[in-house]
């Protein structure tokens, strides 16, 4: 049942953020700010070559340096690893042959092969400079040189000889849930009025949190306790990973994420360097910390987005989509996370998006290369939207239809709900129709077409691009059950705790809003603790756009359960029927008799200290836990619309307007929702127009500073305009996922706008990035 929660006292309000006061005054506490006495500092020696044998590795000069405590190489650390897997994937999923430090050979430029532990980072870096290392360099295996299929076909030069192939994963091969072929689709392709095939490329662009990775860890053998503070999206995940690696019981590990300076997926799973720090403190029994610098973060902090997708789409003569076939190719680098880094299985399921068609086939292949491994990046599966939304425009052009009209004809209509996609997903409360119409109206689509035609007469290149998607937040496996604890303490204030790992998402504020609203107390009296394995229930952290939808739902249920308990205790005190009681702002009163009331503080005193007076069978205390069972997927949807202008002389693209119409169900905090959208959209602007992580054909990275890897600045962004359609989800609270959508949907809207602007040139705009040079090349037909 949908529950449309009208804006309440707190839920639905743009409440100011709890987090801000400390962060705007310089009083945040990020991992680099944590200082433990006697802490040792780490610097890594990283491979300068992409592939080769380690011919020589002499660390003696480094070891002799004043201030250096220890130097470790692969053979000193790798044997300590007992087990290495990610909770979401499980112990049986395939993994590349993981190692903390390169041993015998190196497999990507930037791979750490030695680790200097010293009294300061300055001295540790001096130590790194003194290490004598030499390589027998080998030809690197790279999609940049061989292409995706070339890498897959190379059986002689293997990224991981232990794996036996450069193919990391493929679909549908080996997936019992996916068909090997779809003859009905092939029949459609043979007879349909329009059949179009096109391939869309995406380049390597990456998360770039402003705070790089970092960890401080300390093993105390006398207390048998491993303390960890890390820049992580999931304190529980790093605790589990440390326990597996060392063979140490999790209850001897305490992991905390203090303030975390962004992540976008990169901080979801512990990486080799962080785990190496944990092994070193376990060996030395002294606090050890590693704070990654920016050069390391760009080089080694996890890469993303290098993939392509070939689509074939068939329509009838009226432009109705009849079927889609997709082939997806991914470069997952050398040591991707999690598992083998492939996002194809999620792309496969989500590719139909908001469109109505029932014949479908998906295949895909991921290849290992001698580059930095792929990590999760905000909507890791997003190639399905990037490719599909471009394909829609390409097909619309092919059949001579405006892309807005083509979408109107093909999206799932309100009367088709609940709708089962060609991939078996069931949408109950999505609104592609509403967001498409709202976005088209907000951007003035029809008026723009008139303006565009006039501009073209004057030599101005204006373009409009639409993009739609259904954002699915996964709720399977470890992602499918999250817990919120809510308790009223003796003083009558509320402490909630949960397993989130906020790294910018405002969770301390939004979850407190949900609890305050549903419990019936003042927001100022609710505090949330999270990101701490000792005080938070087990949880998978913040990622996958699940904080509002899953944790928020659990927070509502927990608060309602606690409220029931409060009313039961208050009923004893007021000698009233619990069903006649209501709580507002922490005061319980009898309906129709406002004089009969007790405060939450009084109820708490009774619940904890007055157990003798509670009814037989009632458990004393005011402390509730609720672990929610999430559906397989929860869905939100949006339409993005962009208007760009291209400078015909320089090829520079300016985004003139950007409209997002989205439906994330009930909004807990509209200000936070819009902030999440904006951040995602601008990451798309960066990815399409500015950011490009480049390797040369020998596997040398060319973009390891912010002078080469260009992030968008305030001058490159338009004012983003928001439209909200509110259709609650059928889950508690009615909240839907929305954290990743801005980054998933924006690239295609921007590329489509450029494609539209370049229509007069007949240019084929199927590749990114679209920097000035690429745009000039497109205009000149290169």
């Amino acid at each position, binding site marked *: 049942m949908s529950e449309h929660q009208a*804006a309440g006292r*707190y839920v*639905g*309000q*743009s*409440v*100011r*953020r*709890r987090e801000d*006061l400390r*962060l*705007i*005054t*310089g*009083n*945040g*506490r*990020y991992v*680099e*700010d944590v*200082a433990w006495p006697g802490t040792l500092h780490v610097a890594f020696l990283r491979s300068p070559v992409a592939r080769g044998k380690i011919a020589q590795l002499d660390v003696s000069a480094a070891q002799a340096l004043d201030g250096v405590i220890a130097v470790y190489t692969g053979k000193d650390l790798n044997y300590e690893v007992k087990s290495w897997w990610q909770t979401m994937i499980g112990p049986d999923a395939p993994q590349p042959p993981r190692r903390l430090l390169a041993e015998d050979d190196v497999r990507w430029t930037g791979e750490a092969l030695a680790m200097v532990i010293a009294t300061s980072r*300055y001295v540790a870096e001096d130590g790194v400079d003194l290490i004598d290392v030499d390589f027998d360099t080998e030809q690197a295996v790279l999609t940049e040189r061989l292409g995706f299929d070339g890498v897959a076909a190379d059986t002689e030069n293997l990224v991981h000889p232990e794996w036996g192939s450069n193919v990391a994963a493929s679909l549908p091969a080996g997936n019992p849930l996916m068909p090997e072929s779809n003859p009905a689709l092939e029949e459609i392709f043979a007879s349909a009025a329009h059949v179009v095939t096109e391939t869309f490329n995406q380049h390597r662009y990456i998360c770039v*949190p*402003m*705070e790089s990775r970092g960890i401080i860890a300390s093993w105390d053998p006398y207390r048998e306790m491993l303390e960890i503070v890390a820049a992580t999206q999931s304190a529980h995940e790093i605790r589990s990973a440390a326990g597996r690696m060392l063979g140490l019981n999790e209850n001897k590990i305490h992991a905390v994420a203090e*303030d975390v*300076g*962004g992540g*976008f997926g990169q901080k979801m799973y512990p990486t080799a360097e962080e785990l190496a720090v944990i092994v070193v403190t376990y060996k030395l029994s002294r606090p050890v910390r590693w704070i990654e*610098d*920016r*050069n390391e973060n760009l080089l080694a902090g996890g890469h993303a987005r290098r993939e392509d997708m070939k689509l074939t789409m068939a329509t009838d003569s009226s432009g109705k989509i009849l079927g889609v076939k997709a082939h997806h190719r991914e470069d997952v680098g050398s040591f991707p996370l999690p598992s083998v880094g492939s996002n194809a299985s999620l792309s496969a399921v989500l590719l139909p998006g908001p469109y109505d068609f029932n014949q479908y086939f998906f295949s895909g292949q991921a290849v290992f290369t001698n580059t930095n491994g792929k990590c999760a990046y905000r909507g890791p599966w997003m190639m399905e939207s990037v490719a599909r939304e471009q394909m829609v425009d390409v097909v619309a052009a092919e059949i001579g239809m405006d892309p807005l009209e083509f979408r109107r004809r093909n999206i799932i209509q309100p009367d088709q709900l609940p709708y089962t996609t060609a991939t078996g997903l069931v949408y109950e409360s999505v609104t592609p129709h509403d967001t498409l119409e709202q976005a088209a109206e907000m951007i003035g689509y029809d008026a723009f077409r008139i303006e565009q035609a006039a501009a073209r007469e004057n030599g101005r290149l204006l373009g409009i691009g639409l993009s739609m998607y259904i954002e699915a937040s996964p709720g399977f496996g470890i992602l499918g059950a999250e817990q919120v604890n809510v308790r009223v303490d003796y003083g009558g204030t509320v402490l909630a705790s949960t397993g989130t790992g906020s*790294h*910018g998402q*405002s969770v301390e504020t939004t979850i407190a809003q949900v609890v305050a609203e549903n419990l019936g107390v*003042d*927001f*100022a009296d609710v505090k949330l603790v999270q990101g701490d394995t000792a005080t938070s229930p087990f949880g998978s952290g913040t990622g996958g756009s699940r904080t509002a939808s899953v944790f928020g739902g659990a927070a509502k249920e927990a608060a309602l359960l606690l409220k029931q308990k409060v009313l039961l205790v208050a009923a004893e005190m007021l000698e009233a029927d619990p069903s006649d009681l209501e709580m507002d702002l922490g005061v319980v009163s009898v309906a129709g008799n406002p004089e009969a009331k007790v405060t939450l503080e009084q109820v708490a005193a009774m619940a904890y200290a007055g157990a003798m007076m509670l009814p037989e069978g009632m458990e004393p205390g005011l402390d509730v836990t609720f672990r929610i069972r999430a559906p397989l997927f929860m869905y939100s949807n949006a339409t993005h619309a962009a208007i760009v202008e291209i400078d015909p002389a320089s090829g520079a693209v300016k985004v003139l307007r950007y409209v997002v119409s989205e439906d994330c169900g009930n*909004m807990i905090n*509209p*200000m*936070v929702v*819009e*902030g999440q959208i*904006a*951040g*995602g*959209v*601008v*990451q798309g602007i960066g990815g399409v127009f500015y950011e490009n992580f480049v390797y040369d054909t020998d596997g040398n990275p060319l973009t390891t*500073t*912010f*002078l080469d890897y260009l*992030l968008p*600045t*305030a*001058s490159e*962004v338009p*004012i983003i305009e928001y439209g*909200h359609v509110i259709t609650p989800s059928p889950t508690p609270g009615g909240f839907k996922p929305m954290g990743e959508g801005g980054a998933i949907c924006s690239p295609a809207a921007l590329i489509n706008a450029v494609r539209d602007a370049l229509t007069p040139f007949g240019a084929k705009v199927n590749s990114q990035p679209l920097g000035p040079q690429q745009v000039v090349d497109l205009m000149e037909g290169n």
Partner: protein
Amino acid sequence: MSEHVVELTVNGQTHLAKVEGRKTLADLLREDCRLTGTHLGCEHGVCGACTVIVDGAAVRSCLMLAVQADGSEVTTIEGIAPGNGELSSVQQAFRECHGLQCGFCTPGFIVSIESFLDANPHPSQEEILENISGNLCRCTGYQGIIKAVSLAIELRDKAAAPPELVDDGGVVRGAV
């Protein structure tokens, strides 16, 4: 490596430190003064997270050596508010306009903007964008930051008394 004695005033307090010649001002502030609000986002002078005010000018403390700051007067994010328990106009505006998410880049933005508005109290929109383009943010898409600069200008013009440093959980906008 030889060490040098550096004496500087940070947020009105005198600090004396013995530092290697290669130590950056940022590291001196963070490690020797324990003022960790100054953040290091790139250590090559592009992101602006480490911006502090040295003798009236906004500088990137990752590119300045501690010894170069000998005898200087430095203001960091911890000293930008007019008084204890108060917020500066820019701090207040960042909070009102959702000018931050993870908050890592925020100190650099706030210090840069304070310094910019001190020098140019009524900038054009173009000047505002140009100024804040010297700092990188990865979370907000700059939307709240751009709004915050305009609000800060208004607040400065009104010379509004800074609010008490309390978390009142106030609702600042109506429901959408």
